[in-house]
């Protein structure tokens, strides 16, 4: 499982970086989304992988950490998901504004000479 998750992170990152370095705004925004999946998975994986141990206490009282997956990376990723949504929204609007103002969808606001 670990190997697959690692490879998944790798593929997502590679696709993301490739798109990040492309000249069109749409490519960059898709690239950023892919990278944020990769980063979220990566942060999540820092808590190590476990099957069937969601950090939801089975019974009220003091919890036994050995029984549950690490909740901290999950909390971090949860906020990261929401923030990356906000980032995508903002970029999308900036992208549209830039397209409207400059007439091009090149990331620099003008075509390469």
């Amino acid at each position, binding site marked *: 499982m670990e*190997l697959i998750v690692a490879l998944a992170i790798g593929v997502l990152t590679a696709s993301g970086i490739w798109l990040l*370095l492309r000249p069109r705004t749409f490519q960059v925004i898709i690239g950023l989304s892919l990278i944020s999946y990769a980063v979220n998975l990566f942060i999540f994986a820092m808590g190590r992988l476990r099957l069937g141990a969601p*950090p939801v206490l089975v019974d009220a009282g003091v919890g036994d950490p050995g029984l549950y997956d690490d909740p901290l990376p999950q909390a971090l990723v949860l906020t990261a998901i929401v923030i990356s949504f906000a980032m995508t929204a903002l970029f999308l609007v900036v992208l549209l504004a830039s397209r409207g103002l400059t007439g091009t969808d090149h990331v620099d606001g003008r075509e390469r000479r």
Partner: protein
Amino acid sequence: MKIDGGLLILLMLLPFAGSAVVALFRSNAHNVEAVFAGAVSVAGLAIAISLYPSVMDGGVVRSQIEWLPAYGLNFNLRMDGFAWMFAMLVTGIGLLVVVYSRYYMSPEDPVPRFFSFFLAFMGAMLGVVMAGNLILLAVFWELTSIFSFLLIGYWYQNASARDGARMALTVTGVGGLALLVGMLLLGHIVGSYDLDTVLASGNIVRQHPLFLPTMLLILLGALTKSAQFPFHFWLPNAMAAPTPVSAYLHSATMVKAGVFLMARLWPVFAGTQEWFWIVGVAGLSTLVLGAYFALFQQDLKGLLAYSTISHLGLITVLLSLGSPLAAVAAIFHMMNHATFKASLFMAAGIIDHETGTRDMRRLSGLFRYMPYTATLAMVASAAMAGVPLLNGFISKEMFFAEAVETHMVSVLDTVTPYLAVVAGLLSVAYSLRFIHSVFFGPLPNDLPRKPHEPPHWMRFPIEFLVLACLVVGIVPSLTVGPFLHAAVVGVLGRETPPYSLAVWHGFNLPLLMSAIALTGGVALYFALKNYLAVSEEGPPWFRRIGGHRIFERILVTLSWRWARLAETHLGTRRLQPQLRLLVLVALIAGSLPFYRAGAAAGILPVIPADPAFVLLWLIGAICAIGAAVRAKYHRLSALILLAGAGLVTCITFAWLSAPDLAVTQLLVEIVTTVLILLGLRWLPKRWADPDPMPVKIGARIRRYRDFLIAVVGGAGMAFLAYVIMTRPASSRLGDYFVRYAYTEGGGRNAVNVILVDFRGFDTFGEMAVLGVVGLSVFALLRRFRPAADSVESPDQQKIQNAYDEAREDRKVGDTLSDYLSVPAVIMQWLFPVIIVLAIHLFLRGHDLPGGGFAAGVALAIAFILQYLAAGTRWVEDHLRILPLRWIGFGLLSAALTGAGSWFFGYPFLTSHFQYAELPWIGKVPMASALLFDLGVFLLVVGATVLVLIALAHQSIRSHRTDRFVATLPKEDA
């Protein structure tokens, strides 16, 4: 002593206060301002005089105010005999210059500005001489640079004034920065910035490994300020200043600050080889070159400027020698030079004022028109040349005597006396030229104005200074002796050597040197007279390689060529190179630890791979790579593939014990896809060319390079992730949260408890970010008109619309909505269902996967579905959604919940919980964190809906624009 300390502070503050007051005067109140500035100078002078008894016999007056004692930085003022001498020069000559300016400045000039800067400069200069703390000294040093910039650029309507001011500021400012660093180093070596401590720690400093850099940096400051070669070029360009400014800055103050500092730190640095060579070479070359350049100037003030440079060089040489007697001569010459040079500048100003020109080729025979001024100028310039019975003679004799002495056996020591004679000879020649070409010869015929004697009070300062030159020159020990002694003791302390200030020392070598210089100088002038009468400005050979040209060239190179180069390579105009740089830096930073510690997979047993999971990620990888490939020409399919990758990620979360993440990811995925979908229509058309041109080689290389970066980056991340995942976690911070999630936070879902309780403040910040993004999007789109739709309506829609138009009972768009009526009804019916789901997610969040974030996004989806189903207009006619209020109430609810804990004496966001029985629903946890989560929920709904609606509105807007254009009369459209 207490009173004296207070007087120091008063002396320090007086000019600055005066400066602030003068600035408020009306611009035509010439007399009032001059009288006021004069009064400030008189008061300063009086305070300085009253302090004399305290500093007379090596006493030191101190005043200490704590500023930043933790950093050893205190507002310490300190006045010994040397500082006192300078304070006298600064205030005394300042007073004379004020008197002179009253007559010099024309009624059109904005005089308050002049006197305000002038007094502020005086204050800064007093600060430099009286500072008792190295950092404080550097601060005042910078202030002198700034105020001299303002004074030199006073006539800012002249380009030359602006250039001169800028050059002076650049050169002295750079020097000032070096000085500051030098001072910090010096303070570091000594362990204190206090001047007394530093002066007493000469031995420590000289043996420290940082001695050389420290000295170099401080010297850089001093040499630039004192216009020493090779930094001399700013001074002649500063002559664009009004003459009173030149008279003040270039005789007694600004340029003297450099030699002042060298003398001040003389006990610390002098006597070392490094000091001798660096200062000596700079001083000697300045002495000779300055005198040589001065002789070939055609501008009166230019001549004086180079002569100033040369005399400062003389002082620098004396300070370089490291012998106490030479230091005495240097201090004495500082005084003498200030007196005669100030009077000469003022005389030059009178000549300029009365004739309208300073060009020596045009001036001649002025003696007939202004005999009185001429006589005064002659005496002053004789003092400059070092003629006997004038003050310049005595210090020059001392210089010659010291030049002959052997100090450090070296080539430099050997050539010094010869160069000294050459410089003396040249200085006689240019002094003679100053007098002869201006006051003698035939009557001038093409002067702009008919010259006459200036008003008496304009001449008075010169009279006073020339008188000083005379009495000091004739009876030195009676007049200036005690003051000089106080100054010398201030610098040298117990090392003060016996010296004699007599005019006559008998027939000796220095006298012979003086005689050679005098006769040789006269002969040189008459030999060159005819050449000089017609020659160009500037000395032969050197004319072309002026220092200021090199300076300008360096400036252009630095601030334009290099800046442009840096801008092209590192600038923000092009995003791709920057992102590439960013990725590369991240790659390097990421691989460094591997390089250091080696890389090998860990030993943690891995979970056996599930074939379904492998298949899942096979699809995921195809989606990711497909999105990357198709994002350029096939945006819609790229978006769908992206969503596919997101979905796979979401399933992974669910698979690997993160239900909260799965829920949130899924919901956010929906919203993101809708959002991008809304934006797609405004992106330009881009079709893959069916018959593509061969890709250019450059572009192909770029793609290979980016591909390589991407693959390496991906492989690196995969490797890093794998290596970490196969090692045991060193310590789990999360354990704490698992353990106490219920007992402390009152919830069983540890992730949610972390978000709303343990790390509630972070979440609060995150909410704010989300709110800000929502508002930014709203603000960006409020007045924005998107680009025209890039794709024409599809054929099907056209046919449908044509059909609608043909029928009288149908409106355009009816068919289209009819087509969607089944999904629309479903979507509308789903509205309450999704709302219930959102509430469910919200309420169970504390104990089971869910929570404010997920619930908020779910509710936002409910709203957006209505928009999709029924259209923007219909929804807004039937439903008032005020997302801005949702955002506001969300933030407010979270903040108030947090602040509520203050009332119970707990810190911000401390939560409290208990269970409550609600009818039908059952036992519900009622933690105060729930209220906080409610805030999160409201805000997420508000921000998400705001963004989506703002985008959705754009489509209405563009229709409106079309309609608006269509209804315009033809000629306007």
